[in-house]
């Protein structure tokens, strides 16, 4: 599959995301924030970093970049979109995903290998996992606290739309330990931890993150 990885001014993890895409057996296509052409990709990754310097709110400016018009339109038609860290913040600001990310409750940047539990393997990005599977991938953020009102949190839980949840100590004050969520259709997934940094034994704590990228193929073949 052709998987686009968007670079915004201030993106940091676009190269790692592209590498993860290739290791999973896909072709990676570099997409540019100022270009609304998605170049025929089958899926899009919004990578981590500090797009537009995190000015105003994390993801608030990136959400209005020309490329996002096409990403948002595509997502509404079923295009698989994965937002990692800053990409998750952009998806929440775009209202493609519910809730928002705010400063960590302890007000410090957190950088560690983080255990997660997969709670939904019906999305386009998590079909390679088992429900209840524990994975360890890096987590690194200053504004990773997932917040939403109780109504939204109840609905996410009831509909099984929490994709991954933190195991053990809550690293950033996320409400109900939510680490990642999906939309109703399951094609858009956002999470704060970084699966793209856990795809090779040489550089990652595990290769547990690879499943996010191999899931794309499995979900196509089973569709």
């Amino acid at each position, binding site marked *: 599959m052709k998987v686009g990885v968007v670079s915004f001014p201030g993106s940091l993890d676009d190269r790692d995301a592209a590498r993860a895409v290739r290791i999973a057996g896909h072709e990676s296509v570099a997409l540019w924030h100022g270009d609304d052409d998605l170049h025929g990709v089958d899926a899009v990754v919004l990578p981590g970093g500090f797009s537009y310097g995190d000015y*105003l*709110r994390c993801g*608030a400016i990136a959400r*209005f970049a020309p490329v996002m018009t096409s990403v948002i339109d595509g997502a509404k038609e079923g295009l698989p979109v994965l937002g990692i860290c800053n990409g998750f913040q952009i998806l*929440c*600001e775009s*209202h493609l995903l*519910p*809730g*928002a990310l*705010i*400063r*960590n*409750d*302890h*007000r410090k940047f957190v950088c560690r290998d983080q255990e997660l539990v997969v709670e939904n393997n019906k999305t386009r990005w998590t079909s390679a996992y088992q429900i209840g599977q524990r994975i360890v991938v890096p987590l690194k953020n200053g504004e990773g*606290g997932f*917040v*939403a*009102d*109780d109504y939204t949190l109840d609905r996410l839980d009831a509909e099984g739309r929490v994709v991954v949840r933190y195991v053990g100590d809550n690293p950033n*004050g996320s409400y109900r330990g939510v680490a990642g969520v999906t939309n109703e259709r399951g094609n858009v997934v956002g999470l704060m931890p970084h699966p793209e940094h856990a795809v090779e034994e040489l550089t990652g704590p595990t290769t547990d993150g690879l499943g996010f990228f191999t899931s794309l193929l499995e979900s196509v073949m089973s569709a």
Partner: protein
Amino acid sequence: MARVVVDVMLKPEILDPQGQAVAQALPRLGFDGIADVRQGKRFELELEGEVTEERLAQIRGAAETLLSNPVIEDFTVRVEQP
């Protein structure tokens, strides 16, 4: 020229770690009797020409779309008299 001020505050149910940090620092500096602090943002928009209801409606649109995130924040719009 007229100035329109947009104040943006986190909704009451959303945790405000920055406000908490300020609240904890105040008593250390001897500023007592402050029960709580919430931190927000203030935008000052300098308009060309007169303020009309139509332009205020536009600014409310901007506040809703860009200046605030309605999922976690509330905003107020007011005209500041010179």
